[in-house]
């Protein structure tokens, strides 16, 4: 589903290279976890896949179902099925959450040549998905993420993920700033979306998220490359021994 080959990336206005020939494949139905120390390039990887413009791709390619993402704008990538749950979701002042959700869903439908959603269907869908995540109606009327707590923002990311039904979900440090109850709600939300035709890339610094979202594969990232891959037991090993060995290996 998602194939990344020899991805080499630097920050646009600097000489600093962040990703150094990274290779990674995530299959449909697979939950892949990426773990690694701070500064290993995990967040950069998620931004580059999603199409943030602060980076310059020097080499390599990213394919989603065979389509070359690097040739598309961020909004086209979203319509093609990429979803990024942000580590720090942004506040959109003055735009009610409902309004934002509808605009986003319809923009993607339009890009795919589908008809706009009818309002009653839209409301039904949103309410059903919001109920599952414990998001109340009042929150849906407030401007998106404005004044939301850290946990509320993360739940809102998962709500958007559920409604937009992407084929490739990237979760960037979704566990950061969550207490254990919030973590469980978010993880349940993600688990409910696991499907045969959908891949997940779960980026995390800590093992604890992976207790709740159990991955099929675990990849260790260091200095802009995948330095080791394995099954879910690899996460436990990392938790025990730390990242020190990989910093040297890379």
């Amino acid at each position, binding site marked *: 589903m998602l194939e990344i080959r020899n991805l080499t990336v630097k920050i646009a206005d600097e000489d600093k290279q962040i990703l150094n020939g990274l290779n990674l494949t995530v299959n449909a139905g697979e939950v892949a976890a990426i773990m690694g120390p701070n500064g290993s390039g995990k967040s950069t990887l998620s931004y580059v896949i*999603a199409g943030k*413009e*602060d980076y310059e791709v020097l080499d390599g390619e990213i394919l989603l179902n065979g389509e070359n993402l690097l040739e598309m704008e961020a909004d086209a990538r979203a*319509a093609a099925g990429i979803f990024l749950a942000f580590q720090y979701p*942004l506040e959109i*002042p*003055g735009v009610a959450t409902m309004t934002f959700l509808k605009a986003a869903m319809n923009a993607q439908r339009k890009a795919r040549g589908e008809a706009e959603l009818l309002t009653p269907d839209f409301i039904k869908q949103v309410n059903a998905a919001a109920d599952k995540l414990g998001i109340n109606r009042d929150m849906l009327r407030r401007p998106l993420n404005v004044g939301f707590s850290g946990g509320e923002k993360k739940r809102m990311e998962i709500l958007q993920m559920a409604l937009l039904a992407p084929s490739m979900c990237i979760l960037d440090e979704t566990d950061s700033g969550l207490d254990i109850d919030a973590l469980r709600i978010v993880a349940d939300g993600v688990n409910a979306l696991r499907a045969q035709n959908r891949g997940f890339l779960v980026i995390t610094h800590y093992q604890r998220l992976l207790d709740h979202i159990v991955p099929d594969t675990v990849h260790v990232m260091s200095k802009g490359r995948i330095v080791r891959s394995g099954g879910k037991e690899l996460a436990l090993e990392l938790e025990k021994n730390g990242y020190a060995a990989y910093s040297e290996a890379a």
Partner: protein
Amino acid sequence: MAAVQETIDQVKSIDVTEYKYGFVTEIEMDKPAKGLTEDTVRYISARKNEPEWMLEWRLDAFRRWKTMTEPTWSRVNYPPINYQDIYYYAAPKSGASPQSLDEVDPAILETYKKLGIPLREQEILAGVAPENRVAVDAVFDSVSVVTTFKKELAQAGVIFCSISDAIQEHPELVRKYLATVVPVTDNYFATLNCAVFTDGSFVYIPKGVRCPMELSTYFRINEQNTGQFERTLIIADEGSYVSYLEGCTAPKRDENQLHAAVVELIALDDAEIKYSTVQNWYPGDAEGKGGIYNFVTKRGDCRGKNSKISWTQVETGSAITWKYPSCILRGDGSRGEFYSIAVSNGAQQVDSGTKMLHLGKNTTSKIIAKGIAAGKSDSTYRGMVSAHRKATNARNFTNCDSLLIGDQCGAHTIPYIEAKTATAVFEHEATTSKIGEDQMFYCQQRGLSEEEAVALIVNGFVKEVLQQLPMEFAVEAQKLITISLEGSVG
């Protein structure tokens, strides 16, 4: 920095390429030499066949103006204005006060057609329900060229004409109310206006009459180096209601042009005036070359009990805007409202806001000001809310929000609050938010294009104010804002 930098670049270029009202009408004009002396004042008065009292009033204002100095307290910068290098009067040669459209120069009619302002009543009537009709007074440089629907309005007792005609035909009303809200010596630009004002609109709504249609004035500056000094006077007699709208455009010129208007509103007992402005003067190019200096004094007097005056403005044009539509809440139980959207980009400078002066008992006021700054523009909200010691139970609610697009613009809020009675309750809320690159990326990640994202955020930001505009103008205003900002991101 790509996404937002691109936005900024395109916002910058929009002034130069996208101002669609920037054309010039080639027409022979009648104008005296540049410069301002007593003779200029006499010339203007003579051209308008004004009575002696009007000339004396102008000359008195002119003498006072000479003793005054230009104010410098606002947060705007511009090179000194040479008042001797401006034309103070410019009228189409084809006759200053045509009696019918047939006497109006076709070039002028064509101009208004291009601007989308219908002047032929039969064209307006076609397909428009009576309640949606709009009567128009069209002011071209220094003169009013035509006022539509005068007859229909007269049947209701409503007087809607140019101020020049009002001075001739209704001197008693003009003398009774002129400069009773904005005194002759109120401020430098208002005093200048008293001396050299050339035209504008006059409205009188008699007792108990609800004006049967929207009234509007459309101001067009066409001539080069010409100042426009318009004067508008609206009187709503007891228990009457009127909704009035003004629109403004000007051609692209390399020189700055001065627009110094005075607007006075008077609402007597239980009367209501709703005054809306869609101001789209030429803003100048990206570096701030050219554009209109919009130095305007607008004030409403809620003179009667339970009267109401409401200002709504959408400001997207002008190189510099300096205006504070205000309300004097004199009558007990009167109410003042101010709704404003100020959009600035390129090198535009805006210093605008309102004053709510509570004098009567149980008076209330509401201020909703939304500033959107993009490019290298600078936007200041300056407001004053005061309660006189007799203004028991005065209430004000103020909300000032600023939205910044990019990181080269600025927004400032300067509220003055003064309560001399312990029973006054004044509330003030202010927020500043920014559309940055990260927000744009977030929206795009959800599938919205840059254009859609900006439109969504800006519309969300201004909708509370747009709702105050008459329906058909709200649509226009929304388009205008979208053109100024959203179109810039395409």
